[in-house]
């Protein structure tokens, strides 16, 4: 049996302090976010939990529109999700903890996972002994109890495949086939019909596994603008979209939210769209909010 690498540091699920964001549209966001705000996004009833690195000394500079900041990976993804879904209840959990991820009752729960759990390619991912943390996350995705937004990875391989260094993201593998997971890859920018975007050269892609294709989305990550590259910064965007959807459709389940984003993704804003690369397409908040028909 092989244990997933983890450091036994207890971390409590803590409510966030005042969010490190301003309710201001930033250029790295899709214009659809501004449209949603103009309509008065409320965000009530949605809880976003960001599981990431909040405690290490590994910090880096970026700028999400509030000036240069120097902070941990987790603080970046937390901030980014909060800037899109600024009325959601935000929670952070350090990924080195082993405890169960607690869901908020009477809320739609969205979990943001901008990290991977890598194992050597010689190991069987089915033999991973998950901590309570990952076990709870996988269970929530399997049972549709939370929207689980997972960064696809930055190895330029298909989700679930071994990377060039001989490692495999076992957490990706464990989430394949679950009901409420969204794998998120990165486009090089926000796509439009007039100027379609391409998959970022580092981004993992959907691959030939239809279970992955059916749960794979892409969004623009304008690293040139923010200094932040990677699918880590694609996932919080979809996390924010999930929260916005949840505040409009207050009786929707996590599976409903997941399927809505997948069903309404756009393919006409992607250059050379291919389901094996881009999955269902570029997430579209506008279309996810809109009715299927109206009379």
């Amino acid at each position, binding site marked *: 049996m092989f244990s997933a690498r983890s450091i036994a540091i207890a971390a409590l699920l803590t409510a966030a302090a005042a969010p490190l964001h301003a309710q201001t549209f930033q250029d790295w966001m899709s214009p659809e976010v501004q449209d949603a705000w103009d309509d008065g996004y409320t965000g009530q009833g949605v809880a976003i939990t960001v599981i990431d690195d909040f405690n290490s000394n590994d910090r880096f500079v970026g700028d999400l529109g509030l000036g240069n900041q120097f902070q941990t990976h987790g603080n970046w993804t937390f901030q980014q999700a909060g800037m899109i879904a600024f009325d959601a209840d935000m929670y952070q959990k350090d990924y080195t903890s082993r405890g169960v991820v607690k869901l908020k009752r009477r809320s739609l729960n969205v979990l943001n996972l901008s990290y991977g759990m890598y194992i050597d390619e010689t190991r069987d991912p089915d033999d991973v002994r998950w901590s309570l943390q990952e076990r709870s996350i996988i269970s929530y995705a399997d049972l549709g109890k939370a929207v689980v937004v997972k960064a696809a990875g930055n190895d330029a391989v298909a989700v679930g495949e071994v990377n060039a260094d001989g490692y495999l993201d076992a957490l990706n593998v464990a989430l394949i086939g679950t009901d409420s997971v969204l794998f998120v890859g990165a486009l090089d920018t926000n796509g439009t019909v007039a100027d379609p975007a391409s998959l970022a050269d580092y981004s993992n892609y959907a691959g030939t596994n239809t279970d992955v294709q059916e749960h794979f989305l892409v969004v623009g990550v304008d690293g040139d603008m923010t200094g932040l590259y990677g699918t880590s910064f694609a996932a919080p965007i979809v996390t924010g979209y999930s929260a916005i959807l949840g505040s409009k459709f207050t009786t929707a389940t996590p599976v409903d939210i997941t399927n809505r984003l997948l069903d309404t993704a756009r393919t006409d804003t992607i250059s050379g769209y291919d389901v094996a690369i881009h999955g269902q397409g570029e997430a579209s908040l506008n279309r996810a909010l*809109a009715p299927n028909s*109206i*009379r």
Partner: protein
Amino acid sequence: MTPAPAPRRRSPWLGPLATALLLAGPLAAEPAAFPERNRTTFLIGLRKGSPLSSDVRSVRAGGYELADGTPIEFEDWYSSDWVDIGLTFLTQLTPHRGIIWGLSTGERGEKYRIDPALKLGIMLQKPLGSAAFLTLTAHTILGGDLREQTCVADYGDIGGVQEVNCRLAATTLAPAQTLDYLLDAPAYDRHYLSLVFTWEF
């Protein structure tokens, strides 16, 4: 798109109607027996369109896409081949009294309706010497309300079929919340009262 505010009712306490001035001549005669054959009806107002028509016009621009990208244009819902037309008359009963009456046709589009209206009122004049007089004008409008119709939107599994405000169906507002922003307003100047002092020199 920001929900459109409900049209505001204008204050009935407006300044003098030009009508009062127009009628100053014929109604400023000395009190005398007024035979029925002298009772004249004047056309004192003719309008095409109305403030409520303008309110509807203001929401006509814009639209959104459905979940599959099908464009929805508000122009289709909030346009009308016929614009509300109103006529107002004054029938002189005595040299210093008259009845104001009028009607408007209303207006209808696919998702809104301005009801036809009837206007009823009075105009009274009181001479103050040889060159001055007071004119009291009062009227009320029956009907003429603006009402916006709802749409039925199908959100699929995520939200089902719901009654919504057509214009706000694709916003972040919960479908039921959008109904709070339906256009629903009475005619402008529903109740009107004015007192005008006129001095000719």
